[in-house]
């Protein structure tokens, strides 16, 4: 691959831009531009056919000035160290923007689980932990599921870790099932987090939730819980869009009197695909996939996949729209971003809006370390407090520094990390 698409260089360039805004000193820039620690190692695995294959594993701990490094472990056949470095850096900023006491890390193994049996995958997980058992842990570096890894992989890793250390350390890893060290509220966390930021943003825009309408792209887990909470605070969702597996296209479902998530969930598959015919029976208009964007509503919640609001369709956004909250990762392209900014629409960037997930992981780790688990309300209550505080901190910087919200979020997180490094006397 050519050099100009190296993701680590992209991440570094982004950092450099913010470092300039913050006028960081050279040693701090040098420290934060590159990871603190990198591990690259071989994992020998005896395959089902008796042969041994060597897999390559990584762990990058970008920064742990604010707390133990936190980040996922990916199984990907084309994993590169530079990708892992970039992702580790982004984790540092992400934990910092919601102000939770964790750093940033990322790891992975070069492999494609599609070509591996369960037993072989277990051997890789255990091999990964054996190589790093002394360098990761509840007080050093806390892994989590990522691309092509699941709670099952985390449990194998946890078991190996505990076997090596001779005790129970559920705080070593997150993404565990409830009952085996997992946290309540994980299902709701991201969707609710989006709405906590919406609620706060509406206050700044001087809008009452009950006087607002919203249109949502996607009807997966994040969208479903966001819609529920938004209705609870008084808003009306008039349109949702969803991907239709059978037709291989998306449709928008509109009901001007308000979408009822319960009736829709009953006719929705696991991937957020809504049954068209049944939706019609329930009184929904079935419109083309892009129609969600054109609705006369105050709030848009793109909560499906990346690159959905682009240069070619950003013009279709209705003039009534005041607020966009990015429930998905990267739903808006840079060109569209500029247009949204120009039109004065308030944008809650993905980085902040969907940070409910990582916050809940933090809560899982806290509970695991205490070996005492909260009821769901307590988890969600704490999530509200964390998200609300994070939102206002970013909004405050945006206002004071006259920055777009996205830039402000980076500014505040990098600033927090830099400050921690300073105070520890590292730089």
């Amino acid at each position, binding site marked *: 691959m050519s050099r100009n*698409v190296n993701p680590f260089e*992209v991440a570094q360039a982004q950092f450099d831009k913010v470092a300039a805004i913050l006028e960081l000193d050279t040693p701090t820039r040098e420290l934060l531009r590159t990871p603190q620690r990198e591990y690259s190692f071989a994992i020998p695995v005896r395959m089902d056919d008796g042969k041994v294959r060597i897999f390559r594993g990584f762990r990058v701990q970008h920064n742990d000035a604010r707390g133990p490094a936190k980040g996922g472990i990916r199984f990907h*056949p*084309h994993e590169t160290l530079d990708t892992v470095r970039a992702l580790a850096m982004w984790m540092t900023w992400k934990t910092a923007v919601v102000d939770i006491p964790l750093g940033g890390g990322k790891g992975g193994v070069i492999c494609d689980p*599609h070509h591996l*049996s369960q037993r072989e995958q277990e051997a890789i997980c255990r091999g990964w932990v054996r190589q790093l058992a002394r360098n990761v842990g509840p007080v050093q570096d806390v892994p989590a599921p990522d691309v092509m890894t*699941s709670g099952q992989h985390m449990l194998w890793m946890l078991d190996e870790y505990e076997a090596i250390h001779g005790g129970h350390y559920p705080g070593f890893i997150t993404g565990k099932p409830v009952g085996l060290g997992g946290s309540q509220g994980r299902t709701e966390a991201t969707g609710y987090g989006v709405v906590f930021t919406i609620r706060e943003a509406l206050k700044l825009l001087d809008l009452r939730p009950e006087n607002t309408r919203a249109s949502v792209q996607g009807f997966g887990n994040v969208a479903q819980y966001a819609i529920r909470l938004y209705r609870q605070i008084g808003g009306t969702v008039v349109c949702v869009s969803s991907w239709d*597996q059978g037709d291989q296209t998306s449709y928008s479902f509109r009901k001007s009197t308000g979408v009822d998530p319960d009736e829709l969930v009953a006719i929705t598959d*696991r*991937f957020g695909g809504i049954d068209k015919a049944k939706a019609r029976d329930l009184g929904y208009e079935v419109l083309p996939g892009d129609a969600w964007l054109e609705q006369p509503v105050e709030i848009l919640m793109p909560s499906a996949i990346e690159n959905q609001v682009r240069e070619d369709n950003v013009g279709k956004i209705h003039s009534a729209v005041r607020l966009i909250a990015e429930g998905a990762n990267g739903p808006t392209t840079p060109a569209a971003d500029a247009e949204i900014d120009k039109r004065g629409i308030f944008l809650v960037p993905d980085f902040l809006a969907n940070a409910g997930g990582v916050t809940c992981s933090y809560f899982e780790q806290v509970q695991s370390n205490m070996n005492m688990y909260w009821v769901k309300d307590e988890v969600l209550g704490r999530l509200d407090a964390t998200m609300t505080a994070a939102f206002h901190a970013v909004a405050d910087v945006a206002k004071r520094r006259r920055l777009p919200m996205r830039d402000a979020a980076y500014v505040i997180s990098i600033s927090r990390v830099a400050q921690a490094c300073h105070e520890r006397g590292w730089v």
Partner: protein
Amino acid sequence: MSRPTEPSMDRVLHDLQERAKELACLYRVDAILARPGLSVEDLVRAVLAVVPSGWQFPDICLARAQVGPHLYEPEGFRATDWVQAAPITVRGQPMGRVEVYYTEPRPHGDEGPFLAEERRLLETIAERLGRVLAGRETAATSPAQEAEQSPGWRVVLEFLRQTDRVLLGRLGRKMINHLCWSGIDEAEELLRQISPGGGALEPIDENRPLPRASLVADAETTEAAFRIAPEHLPDEEILALIQGWIREDKTTFLKHAVERLDTPLPELVEALERFRQGGIEERDLSVATQLGLRASLVRRFLTDQLGFVNISKQVLEVNDFRELALRIVAPARSHGRIGGKSAGLFLAGKILERATGYEDLLGRIRIPRSWYIPADGILDFIAHNDLTEVHNRKYLDPDRIRLEYPHLVQLFKNSYFSSEILRGLAVVLDDLDGRPIIVRSSSLLEDRLGSAFSGKYKSLFLSNTGSKSERMSALTDAIAEVYASVFSPDPIEYRARHGFLDMHEEMGILIQEVVGRRIGSYFLPVFAGVGFSNNEFRWSARIQREDGLLRMVVGLGTRAVDRLADDYPILVAPGQPGLRVNQTADEATRYSPKYMDVINLETGSFESIDLRTFLAEHGEVIPLARQLVSIVDHDQLRRPTGLLDFRRDELVVTFEGLISETPFMPRMRALLRVLREQLETPVDIEFACDGEDIYLLQCRPQGATHGDAPVPIPRDLPRERVLFTANRYVSNGRVGDITHVVYVDPEAYGRLELARLRDVGRAVGRLNRTLPKRRFLLMGPGRWGSRGDVRLGVPVTYADISNAAVLIEIARLSGGYVPDLSFGTHFFQDLVESSIRYLPLYPDDPDVIFAEPFFSHSPNALADLLPEFADLADVVHVIDVRSVAEGFVLKVLMNGDLDQAVGVLGSPATVAEEETGALLAPQREAPDDHWRWRLRMAQRLAEQLDPIRFGVRALYLVGSAKNANAGPDSDIDLLVHLVPTEDGRGELEAWLEGWSRALAEANYLRTGVRREGLLDVHFVTDEDVARGRGVAAKIGAITDAARPLPTGGAGTR
């Protein structure tokens, strides 16, 4: 071989059987007498015990003997009036007697109820006993003397001299031949005497007929032969030879019965029955006799296909055919075979029964109870109902066949079966009482056309409930309907296309119990599926072709047999059960079965029902339910351990427990391996499990289905016409007539900015909607559809590639290593279900051709097709093969057997190719027919269209009808260029709608494909045309341009 002057067949058979019994008895007596160390009492009692076996009615036969002062009687002996007796003499002095009694009256024979031969047998036994007792008395007889006195074979000969001189003559002849063959001169001399012409083995003059030689030696020669024999052969060998010949002689009746084509079935069954009761073990016959008999039986009952006969005769035993024959329901004069499906399954069943080394694995694999109606049953049915004219229907116009077919079905259903068939079916219904039934066709043509032909005829499920007369009526109805399907339009069209129309189709019927159990009001197998020896859809480089493939579903296997548009079966490779297609919870959920097929016992109908609802309602009582499902818990997929709540847990069918915790996979692997080895070809099977046992439902050679046969790869392809070759991970398949190649240049793609990579995916998606369906090939770097890092492969979803014919992933050497390819895992099952071929290319491998200049330097049509993506022209190349390669198209030939594939330029499908290719790819229609008709119809429509009345500026044909690749289900794409005023549009739409419906009906009559309308009309305006927007871009386009259709009155405008 009729022998009119001889006694009736029955009589001969009976006599022979009796003779055999007598001889067998004599051998046994002889064996006892030769046994050393027995007391006189033991000796006599042992002889008495075997004596009855030589008599006609052994069950009611008892023997006793008086030897000196001692009377020896069996337990419970009772003297009656029906007695035969012979004296025992020792050196001329009476010593006692042997008596044989019948305890019940029997029909009159030669001597009371006894036969004359039985008297001679009794006398012989008494005489033998006397000699041995004499030997005991003197106690001085040397062993040598004894042997000389009475070697066993002499006794046998003596007995035959008295009872069966013809048999003796045949033995004499065989002995002479045997001695000649052993190189004994005296015997050759004897042979010359009995065979005029010198007994020479070579003909004297090849043009002169050989003189006839008697096959039965005369008494004198026979005696001479048996005089010579002991001089050269030991006694034991002579005895063994004689015993062997007599046994073989006993099978002659069966050979005659089987070889004669006019032996009616009941007589054949009787002959088989006699063979079984004759007490001959098949293995005691010479190998030649065994194989000869078996081959004849295979030809008679199963097929005359040489390959099949050859294999079957190694496996099937004579008694198997008796078992088979007893389950045949046939008209009295039937000589028919049971058809391909039945024969394949019967053979497979016996292979499994006899497989050695796999008993523990194959022990619980069974064959469902089956009954057969032979293939000539349909002729009997037609004749019985005076329907003979139906045979000529196949020569009618296809439209008429289709129109009249529903009537024909009713005609058949209202016809009658002969009383013999009805009697037979009554037995079937008793046997299958309380079980749903499937009535399947078992066509003779399947043997010739291969499995490609199967599936053309009907299979019908019956719930088999109600009173016996209701069940009978449902069964005869179903058989009549299956019979009618022989005359349905689709198979007739298929036969016509392959030159089999003039052959009478005879179709056997296979009546089988449906494997399964009742759950709620449904009847279903717990799971079912199809299996293949060769895996033609490998999702990982680690899976070998020989690892096989299973497609499994819950419920009836109908959903696994066909490729499904809206649902997915579970795929597993028995050789690599750990490597699952779907790894994450999301994948496993998306690609898992959502529906299941069942028989509803309350309505008596076949239904598809929702799987989740079924599990929630009945999960607790479904056997093996835990083995079938996994629980989805957030991102995690786990096997049920401990409590399982079928209502609340989010369940998804994965068969995980079945695959990883039970011997199911090793069992299926052994099953496929044994069948493949014994049948000497990869196989394609259907199976089902009732919750306890696994049943084999069908077995046929793999290939020919879904175009999965290996394609021959010509050795002499001109190098300049080869665009690429592959020699790793190749599956079988053939894709012809590719008109467009979409090539994503790996190097240029690697150089592209991150943000532009997604545009490449979007461009491919647009091309997918623009290029002719199933006539273009996609090639690109790395992993198509990669969800993680988009630089690893073009970011597309299945929707973006759904119309491609082939998907090719290119792995180029970079930085010293070749990256892993995805094997299409991101949408693997979608590729399988829609028959999109996958091929990995490794251009940097030695001995591989990759004509890179063709792909990167041919004129690129991207900018013309998609002007908005023109700036991607360095990366995405769209090559119009026909215009670049002088009218040639691209063909991809894939041969998994050789692990080789080639992409080669060639002429569009030729007739010769159709002939060979059609069998390989049966779903392909003759390409000419459908598009020509559509073009003609479009022209006709245009002629009728009044452009002024409707405000039409011009009319164009686009799409498959224009591109000459329309299939029977293709629509006709019209492009209507309207004048700016829209006045006429509503009226025009209504006018076109009328055409559309009429054409759809006409198309249905031609092809049997039902559609609501056949026209797909696109309206474009001046502005669209000026801007080249959407479909309007095709007007005057460089590639795939719209074809103008002259409208009515066009000349006057």
